[in-house]
């Protein structure tokens, strides 16, 4: 997939879905859609977290001489 997974966006969407579920009256059809979307996003986020390894790189200076 050429699209990069944005963890921050996904996380924010999950929070929104959580909020939505706190409402008094919710539509069942919508609830099932949102549930599916929420679980999908959670799954992707968990994957991202599981696969993550930190990467360290030392930067070499471009210019070795000062002015």
């Amino acid at each position: 997939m050429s699209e990069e997974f944005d963890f921050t966006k996904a996380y924010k969407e999950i929070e929104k879905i959580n909020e939505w579920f706190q409402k008094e009256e919710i539509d069942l059809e919508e609830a099932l859609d949102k549930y599916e979307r929420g679980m999908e996003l959670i799954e992707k986020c968990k994957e991202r977290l599981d696969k993550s390894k930190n990467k360290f790189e030392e930067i070499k200076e471009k210019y070795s001489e000062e002015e």
Partner: protein
Amino acid sequence: MSGYSKKFAKKLEPFLKDRTFTVSEFVDFVNGILEPLKISKVTVRGEIGEDIYKNKQKGWMIINLVDEEGSQLNCFSPSYVIDRIGVDPEPGMEIKITGYPKVLKNKGRFSFQINRIGLVGEGDLKKQFEVLKKRLKEAGYFKPEKKESIPIFPERIGLITSKGSDAEKDFFTHLEDYGFNVKTYNSRVEGDLALDDLLKGINLLNQDFPDLQALVITRGGGSWESLQAFNNEELVKTAFSSKIPIISGIGHENDVTLLDLVADKRVSTPTDAGKFLSRTWREGEKHLLESEKNLSSATKRMITQTERRFDEYSRFFARKIETVLKNKSKSLDYLINSLTNRIKNKIEKFYSLEKEFKNQKFKIKTKLKNNNEKVDNLSKNLEKSKLRWEKVGEDRLLEELKKLKLSNPELKLSQGYSITRKKGSIVKSASNLKKGDLITTDFKDGTTKSQVKNNE
């Protein structure tokens, strides 16, 4: 030092051989030899001597730097260098100067050109710090609203610290595995050259890696003096103008450096820097798992609720329908009853009709029988009558025959009567005949033709 001199002397030989300099030429030559120091810059430490000259208009100063051995160094400081330290140089102040030496042609004096002055004594350092802090604060460098927020889930981090130091180790140890991409710039974090490294680090990372989400500048604890690079005005201004948000962790719990004040986020130590960056990820991870549970339970709850509602509705409807059905069935029963009754009635009527009919039939039979008998009698009577009438008829006929016979004209004729006819028709009266009429007369045994002679 001698080995160095020897090598150097060898290099200079070609320039000196068989040459007599003028004063200017010589001074230029010596300054040429000193040129490498201008390029590399030197740092000298000493105390400010008694004689200070300050140019009131332009602000530059000439001071004498002395050391314990009594050696003296004549120094020239431009005004901006003085401004930078924030305090006025005074005799007795211990300072570090960075710059290069040259021989002043017109004065014939060996003079140190100062590029930067740093205070050494702790008291002076503190004074300088307070002055600078006040000035920068008033200029708005430390305003909270000017601080940028660090992204919630930072991934790309820049790190400016001393390679191999405990600070570096502590930072990485506490940076949890959440897919961080850390670009490290090796920088001195104390001494005179630290400032340059720090400035370069900030500028380089901003320039070459503009998509970094946070820039961590960190070092371990140390003396107040060793932290001086982090109280530098230029560093503050550079940090302030950094597009990448800066996290400073200068490892000094009690005292806050100017970098700490201008940074977008301050943490105490390198450890805390690592923890800080990981915190949102860790909490996010926990929150995700909670959300997962909540979503499932919320949805389950919803489904249960909906099922319950369905049950209620279906029971409600069932009851309603039952009632409706009952009512309908009652009215249906009623209909059926009345219909049944009507039919029963009709059937009964029919049966009674049938009975009646049967009775009638019987009556009819009887009547028929009577009629038959009557007819029989009638026909018998008729027969009898017929016979009688036949007899009567016969008798009458015979009578009539007799009469007829008697009436028979032939008889009359034989008795002597005759039939007179005129033109075929019988003449019944003499008046009907006139003279000359031709007549026929029938006798018993024949006919004669005659003519009337006269009528009497």
